[in-house]
């Protein structure tokens, strides 16, 4: 708690010109194979960022390395100008759905409350205040009626919304989401997009692995294009060009974007 208060004081505002996330010289290798090479990139202080690239380009690896979930071969990560380790409380994460044991005996509300464990602290009881915050987060994604369902009994889209609610309950400044829109129903997609816009309006940064190039421009302000390394980054209009796409996706790139831009 104390740490969080201290860090809060240190967050420079958007005007200070310090990015939410500064990645410098990041390389990641699995089994001696270089998956990401020398990525240097500074995320904008606010806004929605799409991480795009072909399959196997290292998008999820990028998120995981930035979050410290996989070891980096080289490079440094700074969040709001300080090392990642000291800024955990500022970060929220929505993982890919596949990595979860859906049979686990927890309800939707339990899962969302887990987002607040960092705020609650070691060995402390979960108080009504935190449960209320979790309930509110569930309500925000339209899942309040399902609070007491076991998570395995929810549909795929509902599960995705619960995980989004969990990230909201973290009250983070900087969010990482791994393909939150993959394989969800239309209602869930609308909810998630609405939440993303709200987060943006509140001045938070969301970095989102996104597979659908056609919808990037509608939703996101910035794009980070990867393919084994950094291909391009910047405002959507500047970075999402035919030429960059060809560099990332090869010749298949023609037709990935509908219509001239």
């Amino acid at each position, binding site marked *: 708690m104390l740490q969080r208060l201290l860090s809060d004081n240190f967050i420079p505002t958007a005007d200070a010109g310090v990015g939410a996330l500064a990645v410098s010289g990041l390389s990641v290798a699995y089994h*001696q194979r*270089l998956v990401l*090479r020398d990525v240097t990139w500074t995320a904008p202080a606010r806004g929605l960022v799409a991480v795009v690239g072909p399959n196997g380009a290292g998008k999820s690896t990028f998120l995981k390395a930035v979050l410290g979930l996989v070891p980096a*071969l080289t490079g440094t990560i700074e969040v709001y100008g300080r090392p990642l380790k000291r800024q955990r409380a500022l970060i929220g994460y929505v993982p890919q759905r596949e990595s979860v044991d859906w049979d686990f005996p927890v309800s939707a509300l339990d899962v969302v409350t887990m987002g607040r464990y960092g705020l609650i602290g070691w060995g402390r009881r979960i108080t009504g205040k935190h449960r209320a915050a979790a309930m509110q987060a569930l309500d925000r994604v339209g899942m309040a009626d399902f609070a007491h369902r076991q998570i395995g009994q929810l549909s795929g889209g509902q599960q995705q919304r619960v995980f989004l609610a969990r990230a909201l309950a973290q009250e983070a400044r900087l969010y990482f989401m791994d393909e939150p829109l993959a394989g969800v129903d239309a209602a869930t997609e609308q909810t998630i997009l609405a939440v993303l816009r709200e987060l943006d309006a509140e001045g938070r940064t969301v970095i989102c692995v996104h597979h659908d190039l056609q919808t990037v421009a509608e939703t996101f302000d910035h794009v980070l294009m990867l393919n084994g390394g950094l291909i391009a980054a910047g405002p959507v209009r500047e970075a999402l060009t035919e030429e960059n796409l060809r560099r990332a996706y090869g010749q298949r790139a023609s037709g990935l974007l509908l219509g001239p831009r």
Partner: protein
Amino acid sequence: MAMVGHNTLVVLLGATALGLAAGMVGCFMVLRRRALVSDALSHATLPGIVAAFLTGMALGVEGRSLPLLLTGAAISGAIAVATIQAIKRWTRLTEDAAIGAVLSVFFGAGVVLLSVVQELPAANAAGLKGFIFGQTAAMRTGEAMGLGALALLAAAMVWLFFKEFRLLAFDEGFARAAGWPTGRIDLALMALVTLVTVVGLQTVGLVLIIALLITPAATARFWTDDLARMLIIAGGVGAVSGGVGALLSSRFADLPAGAIIVLVATTLFFISLIVAPSRGLLGRSLRRARLRRALLAGELAP
């Protein structure tokens, strides 16, 4: 070799054959991530052994008839494996829980039966306990030869059905789609594992026999990415462990054969873990450091 007696030599060769067969069969268990199923299988042989002993006594056959006891062992081991599969298929319980539950419950049942045998006035249960930790010294020459032959048979079968087992281990779904009788291949593999386990009961004992199935295979994995070579290396590691272990134990009275065989295999495993060039620790960290240096020096062309 001239210094060991005839019986010892047979036991020694038998242990070598056992190690060879277990190493080879074990490769497929490790690759199919079913290493610990064989642990449940071996622990579950105990109730079968004791039940066979009781049956033999009731029928008036000599209780310690090895074929009878080993048949009992194979039957209860097979029931245990089938139970694990059924639990996995029909309930929400995961495989690890199924294995652990079956292993402990079957063994518990064996212990209960064993305590019944011990209370029977006519029965001599001393020989039965030998199956738990192995008892090479009690093996008769004929038995040792028979078991050695069975082990060689198992090794030959693995080589014969190499292609089918490889298909199963690598991509069961594809094999089924391509029209292979995966169920029957799987059954054949489990039958071989059961055979090796049962053959090894007297030499290594049912608690430690699993080590002969897992450790040589895991050791071989450090040295190669090629399945045929892995089989050969695992067979070699198993054979060396079996031979050296049995030899040491015949020379030093206070070294029980089963445990020494396992310790030899474990030692080979840890040596390989560190020094094996392709997947060992030293080789891998050297390559990682080299990659890192090259990257920092900008030598890697994008």
